[in-house]
């Protein structure tokens, strides 16, 4: 079976600095994969290449069998990769509801012209989208705050809202960039459950960048380890824990 996401010898240089060097990795459909490494190892850079923010200098990335080279971030999202950000990037002037609703935009059949004519088709679709937004918010118990401005939510809820917003684009692969950052142990436990719940409920693959070893070891099926832009190990949590190179670089 072809991999959902395939990175082959991906390298990116910024001027003289090689941030990521010849990294190969795969994510299978429905798989929960972790990407770990010390600060500055290039984890977020990998994310930015997968989502089209950066173009790799060398090597290739393929999603669902199709190369993604040259695609803009929004085109990559159209193909089924959604992401969250390390530092939360919600739309602060929009309500919780609208933050999610705007992400449904991808699946709209109408556009600017229909917003102007506002015919029956437009209204039917808007009503349907609002219904779907509410359903999605209800799954995560956020419908009670749906009319609040998104910035008024607690930190944990903002993180969750960002994940919900990403889910609204109906991705096949969800990239989570340090979702546990800044959370307390109880919230982290909650988050682990949430991530597994999302994987099962929405039947998607998740690639997780995370610093917190307990989170990564607890839920990931497979883990890739980066150090100084190179991949130094890959395996199950148990294998990673026993890998001397990883222990030296990171765990030790």
């Amino acid at each position, binding site marked *: 079976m072809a991999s959902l996401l395939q990175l082959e010898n991906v390298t990116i240089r910024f001027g003289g600095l090689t941030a990521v060097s010849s990294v190969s990795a795969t994510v299978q459909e429905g798989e929960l994969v972790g990407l770990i490494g010390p600060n500055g190892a290039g984890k977020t850079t990998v994310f930015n290449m997968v*989502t089209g*923010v950066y173009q790799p200098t060398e090597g290739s990335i393929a999603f669902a069998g199709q190369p993604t080279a040259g695609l*803009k*971030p*929004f085109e990559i*999202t*159209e193909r089924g990769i*959604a*992401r969250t*950000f390390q530092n939360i*990037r*919600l*739309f*602060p*002037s*929009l*309500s919780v*509801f*609208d933050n999610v*609703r*705007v*992400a*449904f*935009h*991808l699946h*709209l059949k*109408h*556009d*600017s012209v*229909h*917003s*102007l004519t*506002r015919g*029956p088709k*437009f*209204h039917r*679709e*808007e*009503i349907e*989208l*609002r219904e779907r937004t509410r359903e999605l918010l209800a799954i995560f118990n956020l419908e009670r705050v*749906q*009319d609040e401005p998104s910035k008024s939510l607690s930190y944990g809820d903002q993180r969750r809202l960002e994940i919900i*917003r*990403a889910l*609204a*684009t109906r991705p096949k692969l969800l990239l989570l960039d340090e979702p546990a950052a800044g959370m307390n142990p109880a919230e982290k436990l909650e988050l682990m459950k949430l991530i597994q719940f999302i994987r099962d409920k929405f039947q998607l693959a998740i690639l997780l960048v995370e610093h917190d070893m307990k989170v990564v070891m607890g839920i990931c099926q497979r883990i890739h380890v980066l150090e100084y832009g190179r991949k130094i190990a890959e395996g199950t949590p148990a294998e990673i824990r026993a890998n001397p190179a990883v222990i030296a670089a990171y765990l030790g």
Partner: protein
Amino acid sequence: MKLPKSQIFLLVALLVAGGFSAFSGRIDPYILDVTLGVGIAITLASSLNLINGFTGQFSLGHAGFMAVGAYSSAMLTTTLGPKLGASAGVLQWVLFPASLLLGGLVAALAGLAVGAPSLRLKGDYLAIVTLGFGEIIKVILQNVDAVGGARGLVGIPDYTNLFWTFGVAAVTVYVVWALLNSTYGRGFLAVADDEVAAEAMGLNTTRYKITAFVVGSFFAGVAGGLYAHLKGYLNPGGFDFNKSIEIVVMVILGGMGRHVGVIVAAVLLAVLNETLRSFGDYRMILYSLLLILLMLTRPQGLFTWTPRKKSAA
């Protein structure tokens, strides 16, 4: 078929404008002139609000687009009008709206030409590009003899009346409102809030920005056409940096991205503009002082009493 409320609003606004227009002969000419100026200001401010307020861009070239529309529209009525040999009524009700449309379309094209390459720029950089565009337009108009050059374009028929002015204003307000109040339209606000996140959510941010820019320029052009046929005389100097700033001030004063607030601010400033006319050159000083005071005390805008609708249709 039951019309949505927003379209009923538009219809009523058009009817009221038409009704008043029928009696405009009884209105004091000075008051009428100021009122028409107010209507044009509403169109200008609302269209700029789409760009600067809702989509979060910073255009300083609105007067430039207005000038493009004003000259295009005036050229059509002054050159084609006399040749048609039609009655004044036909010219005012057929040729004039066609010329307004032309002015809007040419301005929209100019908006596309300026916007497409420069909307990659953000904030101050975009402001400088649009500022440059406005100045270029002014200088070109000053040097093209066919449109009167620095002497200005004279003999433009006075077709602008209450109906056209406030009809256009109502359509502008409706278009901006309708564009925004939809799932598609929430994208404009998302782009303004965070372009990177918007792009990651699958929004084509470039297209959103260009749409806002082109639609905004279109209505600036139409407003220019109204202005031309109100004053009967166009002077390139009238579309300078100050004019752009005036419109920007309306948007900021009304609260960036507020529909009603910006309309109120446009009315207020257009009237203030008239009443301050006796101060001559000191007018801009008063303007500047007003801006400074405003930014110090109410950076979110004067008229922000209506909370932004959360999920209106």
